[in-house]
C-alpha cells in the first residue's frame, strides 16, 4: 500500500468490493508482514442462499427438489427453508451484506470463489474454511428429511463447484445430525474428498451428542482422522432464549448456550475416553464460555464423580485437549483476564484463529497478532500453525496480498 498519500475521495454507496471495504485490513497485513505468516481462517462464510438454484438441483428426491425449486421462485414467503429472526446488520449500520449486490465479478470463476479469495487476500489469509450462513439454522427444520436432502445437496454442490476448483478453500461439511444414519452415510461419502477437512454439526438443535446412535459416526471420524466441529448459532424460539427481547441478547447467550450443552454432554458422558483420538473443535462461541465451564464442571465433578464414572480426569483436562476457534474473541479492558483465558484453554496449541467474515462481528488476524502477551511462536501457531496441523494443510504461504 502507498502510505503516506494525498488524495480526496468521495464515497459511493453504489459500488462495492471486499478489497476496497477491507483496505485498512490490507494495510494492517502489510504493516505486520503477514506475507511471512501462514494464516488459516477456521470459520468463514458464504451466502449459499444466493446459489440455492444451483444447490437445489443436487437434491436427490424429485419431490423435495421440486418443492425447493418452486419455493425459490417466491423468495420471502412460502419458503421450504427455515430461518430465524435476526437483524445481524444492526438495522443497516453494517453495510457489506447489503452492498455486496454491487460487487462486480470478473472471469468465469464461481462468484463465491471470486469474492472469498478477494477478502482472503485483502486480510492476508492463506486458507479459509468455508461454512454456510442460513443453513446454520437447518438443524431446527421441522422436517428431518429436508435437513438430510439439503445437507447432501449442499455438500455435493460445495465439493464440486467450490472446493474442487480452488485449493485455498476448505470446509468441514454439514452433518445432518437429526438423522444419525444419514450422518454416518455423509461421512462415508464425503470423507477424503478434495478440500474436506472434517465435518460440522450446527449447534442449535435438540439431539444430545451422547446418544448411542452417533457412536458409529464418531468411531468412523476417529478412524478417518477427520475432526468434528460444533458451529454455534442461536435459536430465538428456544424456550429460555425466547425471553430475550434484543438481538444483542440472543446472540450473546445463544452462541454460547448450545455449545455449552453439547460440551457438557460430550465430557460428562465420557466421549473423550471412548474416542480419545477424535479431534473436536468448538466454533464461534468466543472463549469465555470455555473458561467458565471448565471451572464450573471441575468444581462439581470432585463432589459427584459417580455422575460421570467414565471420566479419569477432571473435565477441564479433556476440554483442554479440544480445539477452539477464536472469534468472536472477547477483549476485556484488563488484558490479564484474556491472558488467563488463553492459559486455561492452552491457546498456544489449541486455539485456532477465525474471522467469521463476512458476518457482522468478524475478527481480523490482528486480533491475535497485536496481543502483547503472545510471543512470536504462539502467534504463528494460533494464526495458522495449529489449524495446519489439525487439517493436514501444506504450510506454504498461498496468499496474494494486494
Amino acid at each position, binding site marked *: 500500500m502507498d502510505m503516506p498519500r*494525498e488524495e480526496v*475521495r*468521495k*464515497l459511493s454507496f453504489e459500488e462495492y468490493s471486499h478489497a476496497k471495504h477491507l483496505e485498512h485490513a490490507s*494495510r494492517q497485513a502489510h504493516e505486520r508482514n503477514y506475507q511471512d505468516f501462514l494464516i488459516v481462517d477456521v470459520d468463514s462464510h458464504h451466502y449459499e442462499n444466493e446459489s440455492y438454484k444451483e444447490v437445489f438441483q443436487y437434491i436427490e428426491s424429485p419431490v423435495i427438489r421440486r418443492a425447493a425449486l418452486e419455493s425459490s421462485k417466491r423468495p420471502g414467503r412460502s419458503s421450504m427453508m427455515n430461518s430465524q429472526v435476526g437483524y445481524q446488520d444492526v*438495522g443497516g449500520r453494517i*453495510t457489506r451484506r447489503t452492498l455486496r449486490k454491487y460487487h462486480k465479478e470478473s472471469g468465469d470463476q464461481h462468484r463465491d470463489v471470486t469474492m472469498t479469495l478477494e477478502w482472503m487476500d485483502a486480510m492476508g489469509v492463506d486458507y479459509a474454511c468455508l461454512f454456510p450462513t442460513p443453513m446454520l439454522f437447518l438443524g431446527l427444520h421441522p422436517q428431518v428429511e429436508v435437513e438430510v436432502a439439503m445437507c447432501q445437496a449442499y455438500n455435493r454442490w460445495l465439493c464440486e463447484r467450490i472446493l474442487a476448483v480452488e485449493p485455498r478453500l476448505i470446509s468441514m461439511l454439514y452433518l445432518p445430525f437429526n438423522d444419525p444414519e444419514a450422518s454416518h452415510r455423509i461421512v462415508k461419502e464425503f470423507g477424503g474428498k478434495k478440500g474436506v477437512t472434517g465435518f460440522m454439526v450446527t449447534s442449535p438443535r435438540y439431539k444430545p451428542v451422547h446418544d448411542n446412535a452417533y457412536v458409529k459416526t464418531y468411531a468412523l471420524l476417529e478412524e478417518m482422522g477427520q475432526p468434528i466441529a460444533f458451529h454455534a448459532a442461536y435459536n430465538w424460539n428456544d424456550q429460555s432464549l425466547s425471553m430475550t427481547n434484543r438481538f444483542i441478547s440472543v446472540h450473546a447467550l445463544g452462541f454460547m448456550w448450545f455449545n455449552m450443552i453439547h460440551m457438557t454432554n460430550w465430557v460428562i458422558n465420557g466421549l473423550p475416553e471412548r474416542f480419545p483420538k477424535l479431534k473436536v473443535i468448538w466454533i464461534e462461541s468466543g472463549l469465555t464460555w470455555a473458561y467458565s465451564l471448565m471451572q464450573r464442571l471441575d468444581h462439581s465433578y470432585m463432589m459427584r464423580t459417580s455422575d460421570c464414572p467414565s471420566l479419569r480426569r477432571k473435565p477441564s483436562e479433556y476440554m483442554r485437549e479440544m480445539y477452539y476457534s477464536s472469534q468472536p474473541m472477547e477483549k476485556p479492558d484488563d488484558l490479564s483476564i484474556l491472558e488467563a483465558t488463553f492459559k486455561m484453554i492452552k491457546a498456544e496449541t489449541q486455539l485456532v484463529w477465525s474471522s467469521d467474515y463476512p458476518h457482522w462481528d468478524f475478527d*481480523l488476524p*490482528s486480533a491475535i497478532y497485536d496481543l502483547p502477551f503472545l510471543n512470536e511462536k504462539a502467534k504463528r501457531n494460533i494464526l495458522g500453525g495449529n489449524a495446519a496441523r489439525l487439517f493436514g494443510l501444506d504450510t506454504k504461504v498461498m496468499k496474494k496480498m494486494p
Partner: protein
Amino acid sequence: MAEWFVAKASDMSDGDRRIVGAGPHEIGVFCTGGTYHAYSNYCLHSGGPACEGLLINQVVDIIAPDRTYQGQTFSDELHFVCPWHGYEYDMKTGECVGDRRLKLRKFDVVRRGDDIYVVA
C-alpha cells in the same frame, strides 16, 4: 501542521463527506448541519474505516415518568457508524458512543473563500 484541501464548499451539501489522505493521516470530513467535522478514519475498535459508514441518529429508549418502557425512537444526536462492526461515534465530539472515554482524533477544518481545508 499543514492545510489539506478537502473540497469546494459549494460541492459539499448537507450530509456529504470526503475522505482525505493527508500525509500519514486518513481523515473523514463531514458537512452536517451547516458545519464541518473532521475525524481520523481509523476506528478505535479494529482499525476499520470509521467515517465511511451510515449517518444515523442516536436510538433512545422511551421511559415514562412511572419508569415503564414505552418503546424506542431517534434523538437529535447524529452518529456516524463504522461499517465494519457498527461502532457508533457522536458527530459533534467524535466520542465512541458505547464508551465516551474513547474519542477519535479530531482535526480542525478551515474555510478560505469557497475552499475547505483540514489541518493535519
